[in-house]
C-alpha cells in the first residue's frame, strides 16, 4: 500500500500552484463561493461502534451477543423505527443530537461501507478518504472536488483543524491549510517593530522560491507561502464571539474555530474536524457514566450541540452541512475486555440546514447464522447496505454543486439516500 508520504512525494511536482495575490483573495473567495455553502467533514477516528451509538434496543440478539455492553432499552433515546421496523434508540449521552434529529435536521445512514471491508485502521481510512476501495492511493475525494473548482484556488478554500492535512483533502492542484489553533497561527519575531516587518518580508521572499528541480523544497516553501497568504485573514477569526458556549476540549474548540471562520466569511468551503478514541478494544463500558464510550458520546454530543446552536443563532446553519464518517464499525460480539474488535459497516451522520433528517437504511439482523445476508465474516460483523460513495455522491451533487461522476470516477448516484 502506498503511504501518504509516498503519495505526496509522487504528487509533489504538482505543488507548483501559485497563490493569488492576497488583496484579490476576498473577491476571489466571494466569486468561488456564491452559494456560501460549506461542508464540515467530521471523522471519528478509530472505528466507531455503531451499535452503541444507534442502538437496536429491542433486538434479543443484541443483548445476547453483548451481555456487558448492551445498553438497556430503558436508557436509550428512542428515535422510532427504520423501514425494516427495527426500533432504534440513540446512545443516552446524545441528547443534543436527539434534539437536532427531532428538528428534522439530522440524518442517520445505517450500515454504510463497502464490500470486503478492510479491518486495518490505515487502509480503511485511506479507502474512506480516497473513495476507492480497490486502489486507495492518491488524492482524496474532497481534494479531487477542490481540484474541479476554478483556478487559482483561494489558499483558505480548505481548512483542516488538525495538524495534518488528512488524505481526503489532499489535492493535486489545491493546497489545504492546516490550522489547528487560530491563536497559534501568528508569526513571532526576535525583534519588535520595523525589524519584524523586515523579517516577514524576507521570509516571504525566501518562501516564494519554487525550484522546479527541487520539488521537495518547493513543497515546503508552498506550506510557508500558504501561511503568509492566510495569516492575516485567520487572525480575524480570533475575534469571533460565539453565540453558544463550546466545550473546552479539542473538539469543541475546533468547531468554534470553524464557526468563527464561517462568520468572518474567510472563504473556506471545506473544513475537516476530527475527534478520536473510537478504537475501543477494551473498557468500552457503555453503561458506566464515566466509561470510555459514554465519554466519546459526550464529547461528540456537547460539541455538535454547541456548534448547531451557535450556527442557528448566527444565521449560518442554512449554509452548513456536517458529514460524519469512521473507518469501520466494530465486531458484534463484545470481547473479554469489555470492548469490541475491528468490524465492517458503520453508521454515517449528516446534519445541516438543508438536510432531510431521519433514519436511512436498515439495521442488521444480528442473528449469527452464516447465511444471514446482513452480516459477514461468519456472522461476526455487519455487512454494508449503502455504499459510502453514494453518500459522497449526494453531497457533491446536491450540496456542493459539483459533479460526483467526475470526482468519484464512477456513477454512484442511483443508490444514494435522499438526505439532501
Amino acid at each position, binding site marked *: 500500500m502506498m503511504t501518504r*508520504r509516498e503519495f505526496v512525494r509522487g504528487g509533489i511536482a504538482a505543488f507548483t500552484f501559485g497563490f493569488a495575490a492576497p488583496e484579490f483573495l476576498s473577491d476571489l473567495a466571494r466569486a468561488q463561493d456564491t452559494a456560501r455553502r460549506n461542508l464540515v467533514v467530521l471523522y471519528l477516528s478509530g472505528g466507531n461502534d455503531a451499535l452503541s451509538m444507534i442502538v437496536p434496543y429491542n433486538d434479543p440478539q443484541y443483548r445476547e451477543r453483548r451481555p456487558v455492553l448492551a445498553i438497556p432499552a430503558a436508557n436509550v433515546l428512542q428515535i422510532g423505527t427504520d423501514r425494516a421496523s427495527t426500533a432504534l434508540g440513540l446512545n443516552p449521552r446524545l441528547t443534543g443530537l436527539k434534539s437536532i434529529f427531532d428538528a428534522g435536521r439530522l440524518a442517520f445512514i445505517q450500515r454504510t461501507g463497502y464490500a470486503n471491508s478492510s479491518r486495518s485502521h490505515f487502509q480503511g481510512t485511506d479507502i474512506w478518504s480516497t473513495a476507492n476501495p480497490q486502489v486507495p492511493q492518491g488524492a482524496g475525494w474532497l481534494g479531487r472536488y477542490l481540484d474541479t473548482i476554478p483556478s487559482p484556488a483561494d489558499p483558505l478554500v480548505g481548512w483542516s483543524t488538525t495538524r495534518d492535512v488528512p488524505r481526503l483533502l489532499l489535492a493535486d492542484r489545491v493546497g489545504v491549510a492546516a490550522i489547528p489553533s487560530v491563536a497559534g497561527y501568528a508569526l513571532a519575531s526576535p525583534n519588535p517593530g520595523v525589524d519584524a516587518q523586515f523579517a516577514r518580508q524576507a521570509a516571504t521572499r525566501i518562501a516564494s522560491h519554487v525550484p522546479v528541480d527541487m520539488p521537495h523544497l518547493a513543497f515546503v516553501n508552498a506550506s510557508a507561502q500558504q501561511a503568509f497568504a492566510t495569516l492575516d485573514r485567520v487572525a480575524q477569526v480570533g475575534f469571533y464571539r460565539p453565540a453558544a458556549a463550546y466545550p473546552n476540549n479539542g473538539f469543541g474548540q475546533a468547531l468554534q474555530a470553524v464557526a468563527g471562520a464561517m462568520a468572518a466569511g474567510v472563504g473556506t468551503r471545506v473544513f475537516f474536524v476530527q475527534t478520536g478514541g473510537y478504537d475501543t478494544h477494551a473498557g468500552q463500558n457503555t453503561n458506566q457514566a464515566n466509561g470510555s464510550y459514554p465519554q466519546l458520546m459526550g464529547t461528540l454530543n456537547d460539541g455538535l450541540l454547541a456548534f448547531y446552536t451557535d450556527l442557528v443563532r448566527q444565521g449560518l446553519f442554512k449554509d452548513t452541512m456536517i458529514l460524519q464518517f469512521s473507518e469501520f464499525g466494530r465486531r458484534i460480539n463484545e470481547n473479554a475486555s469489555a470492548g469490541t474488535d475491528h468490524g465492517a459497516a458503520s453508521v454515517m451522520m449528516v446534519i445541516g440546514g438543508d438536510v432531510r433528517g431521519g433514519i436511512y437504511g436498515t439495521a442488521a439482523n444480528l442473528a449469527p447464522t452464516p447465511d444471514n445476508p446482513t452480516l459477514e465474516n461468519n456472522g461476526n460483523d455487519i455487512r454494508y447496505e449503502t455504499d459510502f460513495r453514494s453518500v459522497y455522491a449526494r453531497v457533491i451533487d446536491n450540496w456542493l454543486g459539483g459533479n460526483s461522476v467526475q470526482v468519484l470516477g464512477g456513477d454512484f448516484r442511483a443508490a444514494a439516500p435522499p438526505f439532501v
Partner: protein
Amino acid sequence: MAPRDVLIEHLLRRAGFGASPAVIEAYADMGYATALDALINYESIFDDVDTKIGRPGYVLITARAGFAPTTNITDARQRWLFRMVHTERPLQEKMALFWHNHFATAFGKIAGAVGATEATRTLAAKPSEDAAGVKGQLEVFREFATGNFRDLLIAMARDPAMLIWLDGRTNVKARPQENFARELMELFTMGVGTFPEADVYAGARVFTGWNLARVGGNGAAGSFVFNYNANQHDTTAKEFSFPIYRNGGRTIPSRAGAAGMQDGLDLIDAVASHPATGPRLARKLYAFFVNEVDPPDQALIADLARIYYASRFEIKPMLVRLFTADAFTSSASFYKRYSWPAEFVARALHEVGWAGFSVNDALTPMVTMGQQLFEPPDVAGWDLGPAWFTSGSMVARMNFAAQLATNQKFELRDQAKPVVKSPESLVSWAMDRLTAASFPSDGYNALLDYARAGANWTGSDTQLATKASGVAHLIAGSAHYQFV
C-alpha cells in the same frame, strides 16, 4: 574557523541530531571512517549524559516540584530532548527515536488505563532510578537500538507498555484480543496486504495468555510485569497462510498450556523471517537515514534486506552498510530528509545555541509542529516526510526559530562580534554556523537585504544583537533548514 566538513555535518545530522560547532570539529578531526566507527560502536563510550542534567554549560531543564523523569511524562520528555542534544552516543538516541515511531506507543491510553505515574514508568523509567527496577519502553529501545530485531520484537511482545497499549493484557482464550497480533504483522514486520484476515485471528490465539501482572503492590515498590498465564492460553493448533517453520510448516502445533508460550516465540520468529519483513525494514531505514526525496537505490535496499536475513535480523550490520554506501555519502543525498520536529528542535539547539534555554520551552512548540514525544498519533506512528509540513506546522517551526533566536540574542551577538564586519559576513557566518544548505540567489539576497535593512551598518552591539538573531531566525525558519 576551519572550513566546513560537509560530509561530517551530514553524518551527524543523520546518525545524530546535528552537533554544536565544537563537536562537529572534533568528529571532523577523526576523519569519516573513525567518526562513523565512534557513532556506530558506541558501546565503548561511557553513558553518563543524564548526570549532566542541571549542570552549567548544558541546555536547561525546568524542574517543577523536583525533576522526576521516571514518573512525570513532561520531565521524561525534557530528559529525552536533553539527551538528543548532549548524548555522546547520538546514534543510539536516534535509533531509539526510530523504534519509538516503529513501535509507536502513546502515553495517553496507558495513562487512562493505569494512571499517569505508572504510565510514565512503563514508558520512560530507568531501572537504576526506579524503586522496583522498572525498565521503561524507551530503555528497551536504547538497549536494542542497533541490536537484534527479532529479540526486540520479543521484548515488545512482553513490554508492559505495549501490553496495555495494544490490549495484550486482556488476551484470553475465551475471547482472543486481536489488536497486538494485527499490528505485529501489519505494522511491525510484514506490512499490510501480505496476509489474510484469518492470520490475525490465528495470531490473536497465539498470544492468548501473554498478559500483565502487578507485583509488589500498588506503590512505587510495585510494578507491572509480563505474565504468561498458562491457564488462559488457547492450546489448540493455529494455522497460518505463510510458513512458520523452516521446513515450510504453516501450523503451530497444539501445545499444553505450560508449554504454550513457545507459540508466540515461533510466530515472532516466522514474522521476522517472512520475505516481506527484511525489505520493509530496509526501506524504512533507507528513508530514515539516506534519502526520502529521490527514487531509492533499490540495489542498496536489496542488499540491506540480504544482510538482515544473513545476519539473522541484526540491525548494526545494516547500518554499517548503509552509512558506507555511496547513496549515503554522496552530496546528492545531503538535505534530502524531511526533518522530524524532534530533529529540527535538537539541531536548532545545537546550531543556534542553548545557553539559558530550557528544553521545557520546546515541548509545546513540538506539539504544534506535530510531534509530541511519547504521544504518537496512533500505532502506525507519525506521518513522515512531506506530511510533517502544512501551513500550520510551518508557522510553528518558524516561530520556534524566532523563540530560540530571541533567547540566544546576546549569545549570538557575542559570538558574531569577533568575525562579523559587514552584513555579508554576518550572513556567511550564520549560514556556516547553522550548517545550512546554500540558498538560491534570491533567497540569499533576501537574507542580505534583511541584514542591511534599517539603519546603516555600524556593527554596534545593538545592531549585532538585532541582526544576528534576525538572520538566525530567518535561516532556521526557512524551508531549506527543514531538511537534514
